[in-house]
């Protein structure tokens, strides 16, 4: 289990993230963690405040008029097509931007749309190209009356082949067999309730994986199809 709780390491990573030298998978992982870690967002904001004045030396250069024209075309188009702005248009907007961008925004806005316990653990699951594809997080199970995990699908166009199902697995530490958590959909935000027996094992989970199974889920109780997303658990609280 990676330790993102060491204060010196957190400050160092935040500084490198802001200065721009944190790259590749380390950067993706850090951005995903930001989403769930308000204190880390605060540290990043402090570094942004320290370093951003450096851009005063960049000088100002007027962009060509076509940039603004393109912006206007895009925002006018979105306004016409929007039935419900906060719902549909937002996700349509997402389709043309990257997930990373949304995570950056989240870092600043301190996403807390609903009061709920802080997430205690998070698994950022990558696809086979090493890109974050799904995030599963959960609060301290002892504190939760009805234990659950939150699932966020980061892929822009997730697709599930007809006749198949997505099954989520908790990977216990050591050589234990994966434990089915249940079936999920391709929706961007999902909440899955857990049976108490599984809930109390979540705090020791090593990782979370998702496999493609026949409709109705794995017939054997262990993954039978390809594991397409997988990630290690990180304690954030």
């Amino acid at each position, binding site marked *: 289990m990676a330790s993102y709780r060491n204060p010196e390491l957190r400050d160092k990573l935040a500084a490198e993230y802001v200065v721009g030298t944190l790259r590749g998978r380390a950067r993706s992982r850090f951005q995903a963690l930001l989403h769930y870690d308000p204190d880390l967002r605060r540290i990043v904001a402090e570094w942004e405040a320290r370093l951003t004045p450096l851009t005063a030396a960049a000088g100002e250069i007027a962009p*060509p008029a076509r*940039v603004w024209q393109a912006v206007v075309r895009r925002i006018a188009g979105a306004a016409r097509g929007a039935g419900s702005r906060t719902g549909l248009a937002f996700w349509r907007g997402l389709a043309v931007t990257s997930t990373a961008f949304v995570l950056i925004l989240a870092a600043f806005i301190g996403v807390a749309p609903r009061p709920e316990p802080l997430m205690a653990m998070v698994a950022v699951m990558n696809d086979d190209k090493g890109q974050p594809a799904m995030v599963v997080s959960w609060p301290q199970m002892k504190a939760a009356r009805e234990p659950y995990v939150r699932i966020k699908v980061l892929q822009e166009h997730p697709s599930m082949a007809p006749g198949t199902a997505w099954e989520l697995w908790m990977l216990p530490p050591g050589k234990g067999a994966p434990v089915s958590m249940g079936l999920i959909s391709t929706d961007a935000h999902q909440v899955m309730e857990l049976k108490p027996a599984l809930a109390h094992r979540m705090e020791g989970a090593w990782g979370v994986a998702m496999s493609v199974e026949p409709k109705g889920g794995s017939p054997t109780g262990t993954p039978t199809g390809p594991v397409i997303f997988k990630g290690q658990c990180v304690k954030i609280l």
Partner: protein
Amino acid sequence: MNRLPPDALPPSRAPDALAAQLAGLLAQAALKNQRAFAHLYELTAPKLYGVALRILRRQDWAEEVLQECYVNIWNHAGDYAVQKSAPLTWLTSIVRHRCLDWLRRPQQEATGEQYDIAVEAWQDDSPGPLEQLMASSEAAALARCLRQLEAKQRQSIMLAFFHGLSHSELAGHMKQPLGTVKTWVRRGLERLKGCLSMGEA
């Protein structure tokens, strides 16, 4: 092809007044007031375009990133929270991080037509660019602290932050082993933080 104009001083505006104005425009933009958003663009696009050009070093990429960022700012203006950061810091960070993500895309690695930007300016101890920072009141403390760093620490931080160089690009540019430049960046940032916090006290 295009060279950046010699580092022109940004027009001096009282920073607090500008911040208040930008926060107001963002609030209006959140209510889908296009005129306010146009004004916000007018006030901020030249600065943000300058930032994007420095990092991406290609005009077409910088234009594309700028366009994408403003569409997103329009869609998310309501998420800006005054108490969390200054509006220009928020906007600049959105553009900088989008640029860094852009550079990460593997298909962007191919060298295209480069925007020719001088990166030598940070190499020596001569205070040229630092003088410029001093002129802007928000950056004065930062410029003073930068001056206290070793020249190599200062240079590596500026190349990374300002021009978007990765650790390995820094090592190549400065002709030093990777571990050495990593240490320069890390120690430089630590010292900068220490120096700035003494200024606050």
